[in-house]
């Protein structure tokens, strides 16, 4: 049996918020154990002085001292989980600085999260799974080339995607809206196999990802069932032809968003979330519906408009929709409204998530929303960089799964 992955917890407040057990449970479910690095009391003030961040809360001082003990190798760990109370400004400063400090001074993967009393193990699961995978499967994640015939299936919240790959080429793709999870997966798989001119018997290994990964993984007898943070990172750098060095991957999904700082194809720091659907692909779907256009037409429409002509803030999808309706009622053109919607979503992601990771070029946008060129343009304007959207970017999870699954052929 594999040794448990040891995750060092640096935190302030979870035990008093009643969520410490949720953290333990999330770690346990992915074969990891969470521990608090032991340090001497004398180390605390010394570490705070050396770090130079003069905070008042003692638990935050302790976090800093524990981080330094990890970086200096005085405590062994495979990964680090940083967690503080949502809405605490002092803690947010410490969380941000430690999330930057640890990867800069060590090879430890880090994930951070701000919790409320409503945080559950389910919310933390994907993050813990990614952290554990990075720690445990570095060899698997080092794979840069797909071999044999493999399939990847991404069961997302909005759409289900399937990809068949053969000797490092994508030979079949399938895409369906997610309705019944298994039915959508079977449909997408059938499409991909038909396009590839292959049958299930030809497939040598299968990888699944996305929200429905466990269900479809069991259904298809998958060799690899993997959360989307690591899979998307691999898929993005593979498709963009940028497997070595630093890059940033942005995936604005139907239900949540991922921003991942990638080094050599392996996620370093990442954030996952979306305070509200207003910052997700769902808002763009609603915008397209209200404008009476297909989602595929929204991007070109937005490129013809001027977003700044329409006041819109989609921090909340309800208020965002109100802005949308008001703008159209006031006579704004559909082009301007489409551009404003794209800008608003990009701005939410920029303000809520991209501030939390170090943006390193190239910035690669993936997922279905990366095909909405108005959104990609808006993100490029905010980041002041040219965004890379690789071919097949909408199949990112499926491609990453198929690529990594090839590591399982013939017991590889």
């Amino acid at each position, binding site marked *: 049996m594999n040794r448990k992955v040891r995750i060092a917890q640096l935190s302030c407040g979870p035990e008093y918020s009643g969520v410490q*057990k949720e953290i333990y449970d999330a770690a346990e479910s992915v074969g990891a154990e969470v521990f608090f690095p032991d340090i001497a009391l004398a180390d605390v003030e010394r570490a705070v002085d050396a770090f130079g961040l003069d905070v008042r809360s*003692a638990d935050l001082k302790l976090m800093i001292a524990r981080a330094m003990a990890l970086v200096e190798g005085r405590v062994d760990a495979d990964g680090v989980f940083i967690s503080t109370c949502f809405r*605490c400004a002092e803690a947010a400063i410490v969380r941000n600085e430690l999330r930057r400090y640890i990867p800069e001074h060590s090879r430890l993967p880090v994930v951070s999260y701000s919790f409320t*009393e*409503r945080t559950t193990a389910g919310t933390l699961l994907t993050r813990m799974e990614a952290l554990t995978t990075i720690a445990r499967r570095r060899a698997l994640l080092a794979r840069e080339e797909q071999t044999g015939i493999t399939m990847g299936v991404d069961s997302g919240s909005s759409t289900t995607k399937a990809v068949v790959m053969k000797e490092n080429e994508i030979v079949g793709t399938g895409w369906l809206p997610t309705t019944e999870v298994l039915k959508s997966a079977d449909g997408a798989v059938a499409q991909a196999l038909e396009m590839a001119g292959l049958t299930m018997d030809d497939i040598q290994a299968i990888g699944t990802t996305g929200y429905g990964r466990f269900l479809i993984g069991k259904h298809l007898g998958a060799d690899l069932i993997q959360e989307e943070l690591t899979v998307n990172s691999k898929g993005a750098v593979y498709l963009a032809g940028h497997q070595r060095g630093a890059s940033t991957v942005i995936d604005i999904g139907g239900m949540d968003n991922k921003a991942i700082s990638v080094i050599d194809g392996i996620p370093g720091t990442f954030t996952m979330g979306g305070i509200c659907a207003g910052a997700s692909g769902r808002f763009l779907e609603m915008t397209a519906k209200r404008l009476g256009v297909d989602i595929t037409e929204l991007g070109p429409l937005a490129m013809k408009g001027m977003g700044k002509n329409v006041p819109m803030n989609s921090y909340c999808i309800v208020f965002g929709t109100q802005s949308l309706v008001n703008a159209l009622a006031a006579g704004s053109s559909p082009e301007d409204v489409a551009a404003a919607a794209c800008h608003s979503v990009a701005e939410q992601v920029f303000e809520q998530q991209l501030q939390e990771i170090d943006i390193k070029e190239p910035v690669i946008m993936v997922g279905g929303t990366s095909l909405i060129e108005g959104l990609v343009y808006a993100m490029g304007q905010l980041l002041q960089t040219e965004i890379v959207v690789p071919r097949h970017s909408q199949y990112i999870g499926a491609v990453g799964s198929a690529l990594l699954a090839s590591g399982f052929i013939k017991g590889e």
Partner: protein
Amino acid sequence: MAKVFIYPATSLILSDLVARFGHKPLGAALGIRERIQTAGVDSPPLQITPEEPKRGLKYAAVEVPSGVRGRMAIYGPLIEESEAAIIVTDADLAFGCMGCARTDELILFSLRQKGMPILELKYPTNEEEGIQFVAAVRKFLDSLPKEEGEA
């Protein structure tokens, strides 16, 4: 015997001093012990469940971080129950600390709002200050009613 809230609430030395001079110390030990001894709760390490931050809404609004509200669910009832308080400021971490500076601010404010006898002292930094510290605590505790109804 007066119920004396101690700050820092985790200070064993303060707790001991209050008990030694004939009063009941109200601090973290009481609040946490009550939870640890509650059967049927499985929320390690402190047996605080997500219900506590909700109970803490009595003392702090919903926009206040959950960790502050969870702590207030422990300390708030003790502050309500208290008849006097000893506050030691600038204390060394080893003397006792409650982890969160925002909770500290709210606890101190709540204590001062009650209009009860409060002794505020700076943490002693040398032996002479230490002697004066203990003497001040003793004098304060002696001034509190020992028996019920005593002025």
